[in-house]
């Protein structure tokens, strides 16, 4: 065995030489191998080998099988490769679809967002529209209310004027009446004067009649005396017929005179009675006239009182108007009550205007309406006081009758 390095190297060299010799031998041997003839004409003997048919057939089938296998394997591989390629395509397609779906989702979300913000904006706009419309309608309603108020004010003013005109007409009528009454009194006075003069005439006539009667009386007495005297003379001068004749004639004459006197007396008496009757008549008429005068005077006095009271009632009207305004401004007809309701309330107040009681005299039938009416009256307490304390009224009746 080689132990030292030198021995090892020797061994290796030796092996190489040996191997070289063998390889050389091989090469020589190869060179001694027969080579194919290069040239035509030289025939080589056909080296035929006898083969076993079965073996050949088996070999053939084996080879065919192998070929078929190889083919099949090739086809399988081809199919597998195709399938892999397909799979790869499908995967790619799925990927693409997934990406597309995600994109679509994002699109949708974006669209929904846009739609929602658009809806919100529209909602805002619609709401602002609503507000604007509501405000416009409110303004219209207020304008309509103002117009109503103005119309009612105009109406009220017209009514005032009508009322004042009526009052003025009243005044004028009263004036005319007064004038007529003054005329009447004048006429009455004139008539009284006429009656006076008539009475005086009558008195005069009576006095005349009286003096005439006295004269008659005296004359009658004188005639009596004369008659008596004539009787005496007749008796004294019964003897003297001439004197008797004369006396007879005298007495006849006296009698005739007496007759005349009596006639005149009667006439005077008749005239006196006539005068008395006329005087009576005149006196009665005068009394009647006097009575009528008294009545007219009394009526004139009444009228004066009426006029004074009228002035007083103007003050009352003003007082009532102030109370009306105070209560009407405090009254709200409750919403939701039907139209056509009417209510009467009796109120009692103290002299300072404090409402001490408010009772419903005639209900409207609706509780809310009744309450609103009582509240309006109580709410206006203390009621306005009249300018003239004499106009104060403790009891006031309110009629709430909205014209609707």
């Amino acid at each position, binding site marked *: 065995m080689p132990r030292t390095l030198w021995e090892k190297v020797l061994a290796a060299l030796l092996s190489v030489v040996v191997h070289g010799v063998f390889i050389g031998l091989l090469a020589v041997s190869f060179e001694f191998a027969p080579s194919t003839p290069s040239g035509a004409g030289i025939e080589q003997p056909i080296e035929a080998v006898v083969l076993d048919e079965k073996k050949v057939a088996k070999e053939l089938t084996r080879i065919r099988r192998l070929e078929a296998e190889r083919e099949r394997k090739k086809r399988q591989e081809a199919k597998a490769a195709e399938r892999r390629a397909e799979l790869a395509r499908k995967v790619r397609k799925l990927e693409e679809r997934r990406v597309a779906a995600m994109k679509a989702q994002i699109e949708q979300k974006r669209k929904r967002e846009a739609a929602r913000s658009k809806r919100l904006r529209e909602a805002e706009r619609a709401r602002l529209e*609503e507000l604007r419309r509501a405000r416009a309608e409110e303004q219209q309603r207020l304008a309509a209310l103002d117009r109503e108020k103005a119309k009612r004010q105009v109406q009220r003013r017209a009514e005032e004027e009508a009322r004042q005109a009526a009052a003025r007409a009243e005044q004028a009528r009263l004036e005319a009446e007064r004038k007529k009454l003054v005329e009447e009194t004048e006429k009455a006075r004139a008539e009284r004067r006429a009656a006076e003069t008539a009475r005086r005439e009558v008195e005069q006539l009576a006095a005349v009649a009286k003096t005439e009667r006295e004269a008659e009386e005296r004359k009658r007495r004188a005639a009596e005396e004369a008659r008596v005297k004539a009787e005496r003379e007749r008796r004294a001068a019964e003897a003297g017929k001439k004197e008797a004749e004369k006396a007879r004639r005298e007495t006849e004459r006296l009698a005739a005179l007496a007759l005349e006197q009596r006639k005149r007396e009667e006439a005077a008496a008749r005239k006196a009675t006539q005068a008395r009757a006329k005087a009576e008549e005149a006196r009665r008429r005068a009394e009647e006239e006097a009575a009528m005068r008294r009545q007219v005077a009394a009526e004139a006095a009444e009228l004066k009182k009426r006029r004074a009271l009228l002035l007083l009632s103007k003050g009352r009207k003003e007082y009532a108007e102030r109370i009306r305004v105070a209560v009407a401004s405090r009254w709200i007809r409750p*919403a939701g009550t039907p139209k056509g309701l009417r209510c009467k309330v009796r109120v009692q107040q103290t002299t300072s205007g404090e409402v001490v009681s408010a009772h419903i005299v005639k209900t409207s039938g609706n509780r809310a309406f009744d309450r609103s009416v009582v509240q309006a009256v109580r*709410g206006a307490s203390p009621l306005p006081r009249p300018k003239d304390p004499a106009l104060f009224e403790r009891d006031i*009746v309110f*009629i*709430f*009758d909205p014209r609707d």
Partner: protein
Amino acid sequence: MVTSWRGWVVAFLLALDQPALAQIVITIDEAPEGAEPIAIVPFQWAGTGVQPPEDIASIIAADLGNSGRFAPITRDSLPARPTDPSAIRWNDWKRLGMNNLVIGWLRQLTAPGPGARYEASFRLFDVLERVQLAGERSEIRRADLRKAAHQVSDRIYEALTGERGAFDTRIAYVTETSDLSGARTYALYVADSDGFNAAEILHSRDPIMSPAWSHDGRRLAYVSFEGGRPGIYVQDLRRGSRRRVSAYPGINGAPAWSPDDRRLALTLSKDGNPEIYVMHLASGVLRRITDNRAIDTEPAWSPDGGTLVFTSDRGGRPQLYRVPLAGGVPRRITLVGTSNARAAFAPDGKSLALVHEIRGRYRVGWMNLASGEIRVLSRGRLDESPSVSPNGRMVLYATTMGGVATLAAVSVDGRVRQRIAVEQGRVREPAWSPFRH
């Protein structure tokens, strides 16, 4: 005898000048119409926490204000906040023109929580007469606080107007919501008349329509398209049970309860085209009311149960017709407007709410049956499904505000309009319940 003509003159003058002897009579004939001012002082609160669980005074103020007949004063303008009658300075309120004053308190009795109990008291005063008009004290559970506030509103309303209040009532309505995929869900809700405390009665993927309250307030009839076809269902609200009462082929719609709740008027198209029928609920027996080639639908019972008013387009455009239940020829009752539909009677039978169209704008109208006059109450472009409050003073309807389908209520004199806020989705088909029994 001498007749003095002067005597006649004086007598005449005497007659003219009456006032001198009679008392003063004042007639007031001008009347601005307005809402009655009322002051509602925040209720005094005694309990845990600074704020009470419900602000009863503000619920009362909202109720009374929305009725259109009262104008509650704003809180900032209150001159004082008395909580005891002895603390009231009458002249302060009178000077402001507040003729009515409400004070009250709310006190906590047990620990806070859903089962808590409270005690509440209110008093209503007439400021001018200085007299209490109404008042009550009662114990309430937490869940009933809003209801109690509405009952107080009813008491105040009755004391001041003489009419029954309808604040403690409920409304039913249908909502539609869609999720992100675009699928729609429908739900039927019952809530307080101001939209609070909504409770779901039914939900479905198919449309729900035309809820109708029975007159005893216990049941709701409605149309549901579950199963793909329309059918009429009656649901008991207390028990939650329901039964289908009509499922004829074709249209089954617009149920309306008779005043005694024994019959339903409804629309069926099983005999060719939509006609009105009356069904006896217990037996299911049908009686046909209309027989006409036109569309007859939306029946409404008069409160005396003797007449049906319905919508028909037999004259060309939809109009309202009335037919006596005893039998007879339907007669048209709406004579103005382009078209009229969806009648809803007022409780006194003298008026009805309807949808009144003028040249493409659909608004809620109030029709006086005697005169035929229609007063337009709402302002939208497409207002529908009017329903009348049980005291005949307000009309609830569906409208569109700011592009959103929502509910609104208007007083029958048209003075006050309010929106009823509902949380869930698009809202339509509202129905006002009768008074609570």
